[in-house]
């Protein structure tokens, strides 16, 4: 065997490495292969639109049938009907939207159809009432507003609620003027908000990318955000806040080429919307601060800026975005850090803990109380994450190249321009960097404590993810004059990405039997009837405490003053979980404001699905609560059991106060 010289070996290795690296660079590289197919004038195919409307209607009927079967306890049929409906709803429309040769108007209409169909999908889960935890909080606030004809009433279940009442104000306006119920008025409002959001997002992406096709695909990708399908369709302040954000981003992007009075008018409209946003939702206002602040910074950094006034305008808007929420918080005396701080702290702690276990030389302690999803749902979510990651990898440098100054300099030269702070579109550069929030948000979602942070991060990060993946699809996967597989495969992958938005939105989206500690799956007619009983026989406004679900029902349906704490520093959970009523608990009941305790004995039948019975911060239980612990109030002098239906018991503790 002949010996090879060392430099030959090195050369051979380098050659092999280059042979390996070149295809990878070609995949992620900045070369733009797409053309301006979408800019060619095409007419809408009404045939496709009509057929897809019919398909969506049939799909929604299947979803409703799935819920019906779930309510009847037929889990197998429920799964079959429901998921058939979801696939039939998402896949055909996504395929058509992502298809290269489709008219702009048709893409836009189909996106609108899909987003409203997904909203319908959310509403038919509970077609006559709100069932989400946060929905109850805002429903109660809206009902209080309409009853008292006053704003800023205290909300014991949402401390910051009185400072962010915009959703309730608009809902009250619709309900007062129309005579509709709060549920009907809120649902009408949300339907309009969903349509407005997707319109604003489409226009935003179109303005910064110059392509309706990229805009439409970007909107599809945004729908895969875990908060889009359910969380941002809820009767909750972020649903309105996010719409304001999308509108502000869209108007700001559209106004960048205006000068003089038209520009000032656009800025005036942005300031109006920023003012409304400041009163709507703290976190959405923070999204606007991050985005507008970053755009201002990138404009300031940008070299060869032909319009230096652009820097001044973006800085001016960013100052308003920062100042208005701060002024509102100052006026209201809201301490948002106290509200959000513990959530962020817990999330970061959990994430660090995960990494610590991952790299430590000891077994990973699995979180026993982590709620589980069916395998199929988890598989779709994982594939959606995988495809999104691939889309990001192929779209990141291409997005930067797209943001570079147009001219002869393409490919790596375009990236060199961007690195030299020469770009055409600051917004696109920032969104490309923002897409890095996606893997971080996924990492946060791996732990229960960090799940909420990951979710909220995703909402902002997906503004970047959407456009970056869309650029990857158009400029790498589909390319110019696409072959048939390049039409079908990326479109199918996008369908799965959108399906991932449905599967990652909730643990189990199908209506079914009552479950313990499962938020909307714990709300059923008997609990509602009991809450209504309290309003009818005790009157509204009594001070109650109970578990997380019954508190919502008492406050919502019963119009009671439902409280988390029995007395200062003593949560209801501590009193309910204890086997005996010790002297501290007795003292809290005797001297605290609570008049009634509502005990749900069903809590003793299972561990809570979400991991907690009363509040997220309570210690995780290894076994269900005992019925004896829950019924320990029997026989205590001064406490009487005034209501019993075999599952739910109400105790009157006013005798301890010496009032009754």
């Amino acid at each position, binding site marked *: 065997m002949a010996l090879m010289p060392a430099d030959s070996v090195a050369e051979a290795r380098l050659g092999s490495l280059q042979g390996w690296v070149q295809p990878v660079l070609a995949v992620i590289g900045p070369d733009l292969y797409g053309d301006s197919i979408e800019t060619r004038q095409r007419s809408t195919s009404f045939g496709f639109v009509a057929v897809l409307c019919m398909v969506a209607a049939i799909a929604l009927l299947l979803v409703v049938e799935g819920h019906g079967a779930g309510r009847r306890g037929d889990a197998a049929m429920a799964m079959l009907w429901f998921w058939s409906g979801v696939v039939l709803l998402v896949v055909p429309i996504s395929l058509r939207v992502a298809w290269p040769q489709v008219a702009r108007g048709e893409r836009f209409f189909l996106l609108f159809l899909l987003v409203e169909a997904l909203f319908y999908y959310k509403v038919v889960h509970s077609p006559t009432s709100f069932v989400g935890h946060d929905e109850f909080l805002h429903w109660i606030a809206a009902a209080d507003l309409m009853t008292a*004809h006053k704003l800023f009433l205290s909300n014991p279940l949402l401390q910051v609620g009185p400072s962010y009442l915009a959703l309730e104000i608009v809902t*009250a306006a619709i309900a007062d003027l129309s005579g509709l119920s709060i549920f009907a008025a809120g649902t009408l409002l949300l339907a309009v908000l969903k349509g407005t959001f997707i319109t604003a997002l489409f226009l935003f992406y179109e303005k910064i990318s110059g392509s309706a096709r990229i805009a439409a695909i970007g909107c599809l990708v945004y729908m895969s955000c875990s908060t889009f399908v359910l969380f941002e369709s809820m009767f909750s302040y972020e649903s309105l806040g996010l719409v304001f954000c999308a509108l502000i981003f869209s108007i700001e992007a*559209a106004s960048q080429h205006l000068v003089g009075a038209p520009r000032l008018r656009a800025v005036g409209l942005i300031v109006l919307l920023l003012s*409304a946003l400041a009163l709507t939702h703290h976190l959405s206002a923070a999204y606007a601060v991050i985005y507008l602040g970053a755009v201002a910074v990138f404009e300031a950094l940008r070299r060869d800026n032909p319009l230096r006034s652009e820097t001044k305008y973006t800085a001016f808007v960013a100052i308003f975005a920062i100042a208005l929420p701060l002024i509102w918080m100052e006026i209201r005396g809201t301490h948002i850090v106290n509200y959000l701080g513990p959530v962020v702290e817990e999330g970061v702690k959990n994430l660090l803990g995960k990494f610590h276990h991952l790299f430590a030389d000891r077994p990973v302690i699995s979180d026993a109380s982590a709620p589980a999803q069916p395998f199929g749902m988890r598989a779709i979510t994982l594939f959606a994450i995988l495809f999104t990651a691939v889309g990001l990898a192929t779209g990141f440098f291409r997005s930067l190249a797209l943001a570079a100054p147009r001219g002869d300099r393409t490919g790596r030269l375009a990236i060199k321009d961007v690195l030299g702070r020469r770009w055409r579109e600051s917004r696109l550069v920032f969104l490309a960097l923002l897409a890095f929030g996606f893997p971080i948000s996924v990492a946060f979602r791996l732990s229960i404590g960090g799940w909420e942070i990951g979710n909220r991060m995703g909402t902002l990060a997906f503004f970047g993810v959407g456009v970056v993946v869309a650029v990857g699809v158009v400029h790498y996967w589909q390319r110019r004059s696409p072959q048939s597989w390049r039409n079908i495969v990326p479109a199918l992958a996008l369908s799965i990405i959108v399906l991932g938005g449905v599967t990652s939105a909730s643990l189990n989206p199908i209506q079914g039997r009552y479950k313990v500690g499962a938020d909307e799956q714990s709300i059923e007619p008997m609990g509602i*009837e009991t809450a209504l009983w309290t309003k009818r*026989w005790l009157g509204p406004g009594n001070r109650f405490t109970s578990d997380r679900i019954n508190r919502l029902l008492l406050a919502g349906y019963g119009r009671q003053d439902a409280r988390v704490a029995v007395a200062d520093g003593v949560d209801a959970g501590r009193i309910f979980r204890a086997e005996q009523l010790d002297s501290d608990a007795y003292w809290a009941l005797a001297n605290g404001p609570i008049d009634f305790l509502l005990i749900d004995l069903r809590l003793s039948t299972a561990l809570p699905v979400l991991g907690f019975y009363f509040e997220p911060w309570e210690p995780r239980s290894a076994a269900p609560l005992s019925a004896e612990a829950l019924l320990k109030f029997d026989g205590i002098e001064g406490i009487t059991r005034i209501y019993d239906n075999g599952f739910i018991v109400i105790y009157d503790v006013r005798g301890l106060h010496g009032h009754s």
Partner: protein
Amino acid sequence: MGIHSNKDLSAACAWATAMVAVVAVTDSTLLRTILGGPMVLLISGHVVLRAFGVRSTSLPEHLAYAVGASLATGIAGGLVLNALDILTPLGWAAWFWIVTVGASLLTTIRHEDSDLPSWPRPTGLRLWHGITFAIAVLITTGAYALAVRDEADQQQFKYVEFWMLPPVNAGTDRLTIGVRNAEPKTERFNLEVTLSGRPFAIFRSLTLAPGDTWTREIPVPVQSTAQKAEARLYRQDDNRLYRSVSALVPGT
């Protein structure tokens, strides 16, 4: 080609005036929804955009901005009406009327050219497209009705509610006792009431069909010290104790 006229402003003012009239004189939900919904969600924003002089390049863009401006107008209205203590239906109607008429006047005085984006003309739309769309709407509406029916039919738990309210809730010197049958079949009960452990009242053979409620107010003697009243519900079939509730009768 845009639309150059102020007819839209005249129409918005007429709409706002009609809405005020309807809110003032009728409780018709349909009429009020038809007039009030678009006012809160679109029309007020449209006139505000006109007053601002913000131009848009397409109809979806104009509609999206108009919705945003309407929402902001509504939020501002909430603050103003709250300050004036008239957060009522008529207060809302007045607010939107003032905004609509005021913004329209401002636009007219400033001689703002509307230049609204034109409505797109659909080409290639056939009858069968319309019929298919109508059928899709019917299916979706029917599916919603089905969902409402399924929800109304859901009754996982079967139960009987039993309660006793103390004088502080039932009325001076009396207790209220109630039974409601939420079982799917007729139930028969015997009911026994004691006061400080002594028999006080008995009700036999209470027959309750599904959904029926039985209530009774019982006068109680008030003594110098508090007394504990207890009520026990027995199933007539086996005479076993089924439920028990209690209440305090305060002393003088």
